[in-house]
């Protein structure tokens, strides 16, 4: 038991959502670091407070909303002291003191005491029958009142008040909602949406008295009514106060920890006393307090990372979104939608359908959204809001939502809500809507990863991800908004691609195991999705220094050929700028004959594909192609693929510049460079654009006076025309600008994120600033590109065919003869 003694002691005050989420995450990261004791005033394990509303309305039971049973605390060696309240923190001796006087020592303390409902200081506020709406006990009291009394008054027309009123109404009470202002949920809704909400609640039987100021609560030994400032009196057997919450900071304040509205914490979730952390509704971070779980979960993650002594995560605040959990009413709100001179609004209102959407923009970005009646696009707007996406390209269609933005093959469909069960959502795997909805309901799926694993929808090309997310959102309703803010790289980690890229640089990490160890990977060697990503990040960050890990490469990049459905491979030699010679063609023909290659095909990339080559023949096939001067076309690479060209000024009567020659120069300069995803380029000799430059990752259009450079186009899963980057005068400048652009993408892109997606994410202007406006920066990027090229321009085919690299890869280990 020696080691047990040497463990540090972590004491948690508050057995609620933020505190326990922190403990759960801490256990994943550092299961053996602490002896943990949790104090909770409430006499239960940890439960999902959000779902008290459906419990009140009778749609769920208390058992349904339990998150961690007492067994869970036992199994994880946590001492749970439920029903015990801490009354003092003694910072001098590092102890907490319970209501019965017991003292428990801590090395680290976590305060997660949540908040308390604000009880207006009215005469009669202490009468039996006057309650807040915060915990299981409150719900039990409300349910009890509803069985024996007819009339309820809810004070407060915010989210909580309306959910309470709806629940009590479902329990058969006559409910009047009293609100100080003339606009319901004024913090989340604008007056139009608020009016629509009021109307549909009235249709269900809810009564409103607003604007109205409550003056007194009436009654002798139990509440009997409420009196207002205008003299009106209403009968009431139950009064629910839902006028707001106040961070529960009393303990911290008494202990001399700096508090303002909440307990003030830094970006590492530490209070002014470095041993004491705080998370949840009780904290104030960068002047902000929160009353929704999504931000608290973000805080919990950071706090757990700090408690695990990893110390690289930090919290920088959250943007929140809200959904009202009243069955049958669809309402979504996020961000800042107050009118302002610097803001613009896009509004759509269809009174007949009961649909209203208001998207608030500032600087080409979404800063707020209010949706009523049709909220399936809520998560989609919210994602763009948090990502700070530049939406100028989709502005006209923005208000119609994700489904109308021309995702390949899905354009024209309005919203998943309107689709029939048999509508196909995932074209690659043939999965229809009904199958997904059924899997979500039956298998209790919550995340897009779950849906991928169980149905295969969105697991291949991913173009239907947005649609699947919509199906999830509308099938799960309110629960979906608790999805984490940053998307983790994969199931092996909670960290995002950005986190990994940043930590690799900051911590100077140089191997995949080091990254995984430092960032607490949850699996032993990652998986097929994170290992190739990390391998790329290391390669791009430490050119010349990092040793490429072959076993973390997808097979195509490991053997420098594309695997086919029958396990054979295809071989695509480079044809610089799409130009070939009789000699090359003869060599290709000879190779095809010699190795009995079944198919010889002209590709969409202006070169020739030899399909159906046996793996063991690859080195010999390459040797023959090498002899004729040909090298790998990297048709498999997350890197430069092809540079398509047209004939240009050398032959064409319209050609303005030597597009063929420039294409060849670009390809010879840039081949071999690894990138987050494939990179395709093209050079057209005039604006007739025969090389299709305007749907490539980078496209050049020659004009009389120079070269127009375009980028961020694509024509695969998603069809997207390029963005104009700049016009330059010379071939040299063209090369410099393209190399600098590619380098910026190499340094910022997430693995498998094509250039157009990267551009969407970081913004066109940000990219222009760095490679067009800031010439010093452009030059520095260009130099880094050139530096890294010296390590990558060695033909992988020659290495294997002539120098015996990876010889083992291509030969069987042994041959067994069977009897």
């Amino acid at each position, binding site marked *: 038991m020696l080691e047990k003694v040497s463990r540090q002691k972590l004491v948690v005050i508050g057995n609620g959502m933020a505190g326990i989420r922190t403990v759960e995450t801490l256990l994943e990261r550092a299961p053996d670091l602490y002896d943990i004791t949790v104090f909770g005033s409430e006499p239960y394990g940890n439960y999902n407070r959000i779902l008290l509303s459906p419990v009140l309305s009778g749609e769920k039971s208390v058992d349904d909303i339990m998150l961690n049973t007492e067994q869970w605390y036992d199994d994880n060696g946590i001492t749970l002291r439920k029903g015990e309240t801490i009354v003092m923190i003694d910072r001098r001796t590092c102890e907490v003191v319970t209501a019965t006087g017991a003292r428990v020592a801590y090395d680290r303390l976590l305060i997660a005491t949540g908040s308390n409902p604000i009880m207006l200081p009215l005469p009669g506020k202490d009468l039996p029958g006057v309650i807040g709406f915060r915990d299981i006990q409150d719900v039990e009291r409300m349910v009890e009142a509803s069985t024996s009394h007819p009339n309820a008054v809810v004070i407060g027309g915010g989210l909580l008040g309306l959910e309470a009123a709806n629940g009590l109404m479902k329990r058969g009470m006559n409910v009047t909602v009293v609100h100080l202002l003339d606009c319901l949920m004024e913090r989340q809704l604008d007056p139009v949406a608020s009016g629509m909400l009021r109307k549909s609640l009235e249709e269900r039987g809810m009564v409103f008295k607003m604007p109205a100021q409550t003056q007194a609560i009436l009654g002798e030994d139990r509440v009997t009514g409420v009196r207002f400032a205008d003299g009106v009196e209403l009968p009431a057997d139950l009064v629910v106060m839902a006028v707001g919450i106040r961070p529960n900071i009393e303990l911290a304040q008494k202990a001399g920890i700096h508090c303002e509205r909440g307990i003030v914490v830094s970006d590492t979730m530490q209070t002014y006393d470095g041993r004491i952390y705080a998370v949840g509704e009780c904290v104030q971070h960068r002047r902000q307090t929160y009353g929704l779980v999504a931000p608290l979960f973000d805080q919990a993650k950071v706090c757990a990372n700090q408690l695990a002594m990893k110390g690289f995560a930090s919290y920088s605040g959250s943007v929140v979104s809200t959904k009202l959990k009243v069955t049958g009413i669809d309402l979504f709100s996020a961000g800042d939608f107050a009118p302002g001179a610097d803001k613009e609004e896009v509004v759509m209102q269809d009174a007949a359908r009961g649909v209203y959407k208001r998207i608030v923009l500032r600087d080409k970005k979404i800063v707020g959204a209010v949706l009523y009646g049709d909220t399936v696009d809520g998560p989609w707007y919210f994602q763009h809001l948090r990502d700070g996406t530049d939406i100028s390209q989709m502005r006209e269609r923005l208000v119609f939502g994700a489904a109308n933005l021309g995702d390949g093959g899905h354009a024209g469909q309005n919203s998943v809500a309107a689709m029939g069960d048999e509508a196909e959502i995932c074209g690659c795997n043939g999965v229809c809507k009904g199958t997904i909805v059924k899997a979500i309901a039956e298998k209790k799926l919550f995340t897009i990863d779950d849906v991928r694993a169980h149905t295969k929808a969105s697991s291949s090309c991913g173009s239907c991800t947005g649609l699947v997310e919509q199906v999830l959102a509308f099938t799960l309703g309110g629960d979906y908004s608790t999805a984490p803010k940053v998307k983790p790289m994969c199931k092996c980690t909670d960290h995002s691609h950005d986190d990994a890229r940043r930590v690799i640089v900051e911590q100077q990490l140089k191997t995949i195991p080091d990254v995984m160890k430092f960032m607490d990977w949850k699996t032993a060697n990652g998986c*097929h999705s994170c290992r190739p990503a990390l391998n790329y990040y290391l390669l791009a960050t430490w050119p010349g220094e990092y040793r490429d890990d072959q076993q973390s490469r997808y097979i195509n990049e490991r053997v420098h050929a594309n*695997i086919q459905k029958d396990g054979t491979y295809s071989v695509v030699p480079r044809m610089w700028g799409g130009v070939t010679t009789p000699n090359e063609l003869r060599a290709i023909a000879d190779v095809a004959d010699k190795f009995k290659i079944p198919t010889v095909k002209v590709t969409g990339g202006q070169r020739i594909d030899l399909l159906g080559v046996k793996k063991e023949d690859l080195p010999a096939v390459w040797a023959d192609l090498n002899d004729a001067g040909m090298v790998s076309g990297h048709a498999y690479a997350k890197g430069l693929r092809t540079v398509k060209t047209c004939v240009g000024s050398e032959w064409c009567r319209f050609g303005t510049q030597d597009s063929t020659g420039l294409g060849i120069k670009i390809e010879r300069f840039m081949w071999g460079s690894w990138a987050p995803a494939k990179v395709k380029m093209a050079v057209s000799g005039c604006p007739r654009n025969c090389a299709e430059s305007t749907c490539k990752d980078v496209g050049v259009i020659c004009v009389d006076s120079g070269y127009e450079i375009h980028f961020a186009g694509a024509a695969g899963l998603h069809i997207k025309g390029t963005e104009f980057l700049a016009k330059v005068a010379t071939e040299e400048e063209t090369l410099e600008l393209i190399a600098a652009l590619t380098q910026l993408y190499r340094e910022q892109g997430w693995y498998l994120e094509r250039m157009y997606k990267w551009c969407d994410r970081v913004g066109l202007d940000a990219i222009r600033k760095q490679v067009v406006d800031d010439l010093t920066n452009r030059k520095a990027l260009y130099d880094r590109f050139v530096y890294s090229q010296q390590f990558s321009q060695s033909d992988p085919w020659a290495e294997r065919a002539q120098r015996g690299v990876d010889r083992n890869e291509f030969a069987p280990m042994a041959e067994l003869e069977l009897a």
Partner: protein
Amino acid sequence: MTRWIEIGALDQIPRLGARVVRTASGNIAVFRTEDDEVFALDDRCPHKGGPLSQGIVHNKRVTCPLHNFVIELANGEAVAPDEGCAHSYPAKVENGTVWLSVREAVTASVD
């Protein structure tokens, strides 16, 4: 009767990688984990016959290169929710040499 057949040195297989052993009835994939355990499976994915030997090995699993089924090396079972099973063979390492047990095999030529 099970007979153990020597198929070569452990260091002929890359860590977190695989090699194939050729037989008249198809290839057998021999995998090596990070801590030098070896496992052998038919080199055919239960989904559509993809060559498992060409996949990415992680922990005691391999991801098929064709459509990402994840297969348990120990018994060839596809990881849920996918379904299917690749035939597995006993395999072991002794003093740096890899042994495979294939019931009908009589002779082996090792290179």
